[in-house]
């Protein structure tokens, strides 16, 4: 099916070319797993937003007579060591984790994309300095960079967002840089330049739309990676502080009573795992949809 072939028109209406969405639809149908992941994430997000209405108990209310109660009809996920309802805390935790994921992924995306566009467009000294700076950040593998930043800024969930956000900047910069370099090879970019197109117009009209697809995929995957890293930092005590119902912090608190109250660690950890799995599945689906080159 060609893009420009006019569709048979009805009732004298002018024929329209097949739209982008029309083309995407059959492909969307093939991404059933990705669609399922997206729906699951929407449910999690909605329950996080509606936590005050949905959670059966106050996530911070201590009940000294009802500590470490196993899962039951009254407390679906049991209660923790000070009698707080684990189910309610997991629902409230969705709020925290999704916010952390979004905010830090936005930090990485904005800084990373700007640096990638600039370093790809101005290949000379500016590009060199930016790329070497990224190499330097990449010298601190995995969670080490975020850990270093948190040890400077101090332990709090806000600082974790900044730390995790910064530590993923090089990934975005490198991908965008590479895309810009390949886009620049195209004749139409050369043509636009010959016609006197300024740098800003060039970014907006010609370069940015072309690097958008990989950025959307990376952004999605980064939300999951950020939730993963942030909960790890909270687990080791450098992120969310008690009594916050952050999932990583909840798993951490539960490990001291693991052998007689597994539910304290098991359920919040399961929540992290399911959300990160769903985001990764969604990211992979988006990649298949938007970026057929890397299938």
């Amino acid at each position: 099916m060609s893009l420009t072939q006019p569709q048979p028109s009805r009732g004298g209406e002018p024929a329209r070319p097949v739209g982008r969405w029309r083309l995407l639809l059959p492909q969307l149908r093939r991404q059933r797993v990705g669609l399922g992941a997206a729906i699951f994430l929407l449910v999690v997000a909605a329950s996080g937003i509606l936590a005050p209405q949905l959670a059966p108990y106050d996530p911070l209310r201590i009940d000294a007579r009802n500590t470490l109660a196993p899962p039951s009809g009254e407390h679906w996920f049991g209660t923790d060591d000070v009698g707080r309802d684990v189910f309610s805390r997991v629902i409230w935790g969705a709020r925290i984790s999704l916010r952390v994921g979004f905010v830090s992924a936005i930090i990485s995306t904005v800084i990373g994309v700007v640096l990638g566009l600039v370093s790809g467009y101005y290949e000379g000294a500016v590009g060199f300095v930016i790329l070497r700076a990224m190499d330097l950040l990449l010298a601190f593998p995995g969670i080490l960079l975020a850990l270093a930043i948190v040890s400077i800024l101090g332990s709090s969930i806000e600082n974790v967002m900044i730390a995790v956000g910064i530590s993923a900047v090089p990934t975005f910069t490198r991908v965008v840089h590479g895309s810009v370099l390949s886009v620049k090879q195209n004749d139409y970019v050369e043509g636009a330049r010959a016609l006197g197109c300024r740098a800003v117009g060039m970014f907006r009209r010609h370069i940015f739309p072309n690097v958008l697809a990989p950025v959307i995929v990376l952004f999605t995957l980064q939300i999951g990676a950020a939730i993963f890293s942030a909960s790890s930092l909270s687990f080791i005590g450098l992120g969310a502080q008690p009594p916050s119902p952050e999932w990583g912090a909840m798993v951490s608190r539960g490990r001291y009573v693991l052998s007689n109250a597994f539910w304290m660690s098991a359920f919040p950890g399961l929540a992290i795992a399911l959300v990160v799995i769903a985001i990764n599945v969604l990211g992979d689906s988006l990649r298949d949809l938007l970026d057929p080159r890397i299938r």
Partner: protein
Amino acid sequence: MYKFVLRRILILAPLLIMISFLVFSMIQLVPGDPVILMLGEYSVANAESIQALREQLGFDKPFYLQYWNYFTSLVQGDLGMSIRSKKPVLEQIVQRLPSTFELTLAGLGFAVVLGIFLGVVSALYHNRWPDRMAVTIALLGMSIPSFWLGLMLILIFSVYLRWLPVTGTSLKSLVLPALTLGLWAAGPIARFTRSGLLEVMRQDYIRTARSKGLRERTVVWHHMLRNALIPVVTILGIRFGQILAGTIIIEAVFARPGLGLYLLNAIVAKDFPLVQGIILFVAAAYVIVNSLVEVTYAAIDPRIEYG
């Protein structure tokens, strides 16, 4: 080849210097007075000890001189003194290194074996159920937080089944941490192996090998894997770094007395020279290993230009 190695070293040296500068600057970026922060509640009112520590750390000198002193001692293998234990940082690192190194190697080994196995299964049964299963295992491994997986493994194998100890220094106590770490790191290796194999399988020489009447096993192991694994080697250096950093979390879960747990304690204790020393050590180890991997890669793949 010599030229290539030389060039890697020429890239490595400025990178190491920049790393040392960044790690050194860490303490300057701490909001507030780092000396008071380090002393904490121990001696807030004691102006003398504040002054003494400030002089010990060289904070009374200008920034560039501070870095110069830091750098020159670094070159001589002096990473400074821990504020809490008052012992040389390097000595403390070396003491805890074997445990972390052991865990890193075991984790990497398990990740490579599992990752390549999953990748091979995936590619050979492309789009059939073993492929889907292998891809799912790889995805789960990457997505399940290692600290939680570690705890759940402890719960199953140590608490309920009583097969393996939770902590300790025996080889048996290495099984669960290495498994946790390896499962997490196997995912990307599996994906690389899978896509590499799928690429190689389409090549003409594979068809030639088959039409020569070679056994399928020979074709897979000798003709396909050899070429498909070359790109996998390049990501091993990166995986090594991530596993090394991952030990920080795993050591906290399994209470293993390694470098990672030590770093966490140092961060909590605001022992900045120790924090800086460990972070510098890990970053330097990572970039050096990465360079070694690249040189090895160039050595095993004749298609790489050394120039």
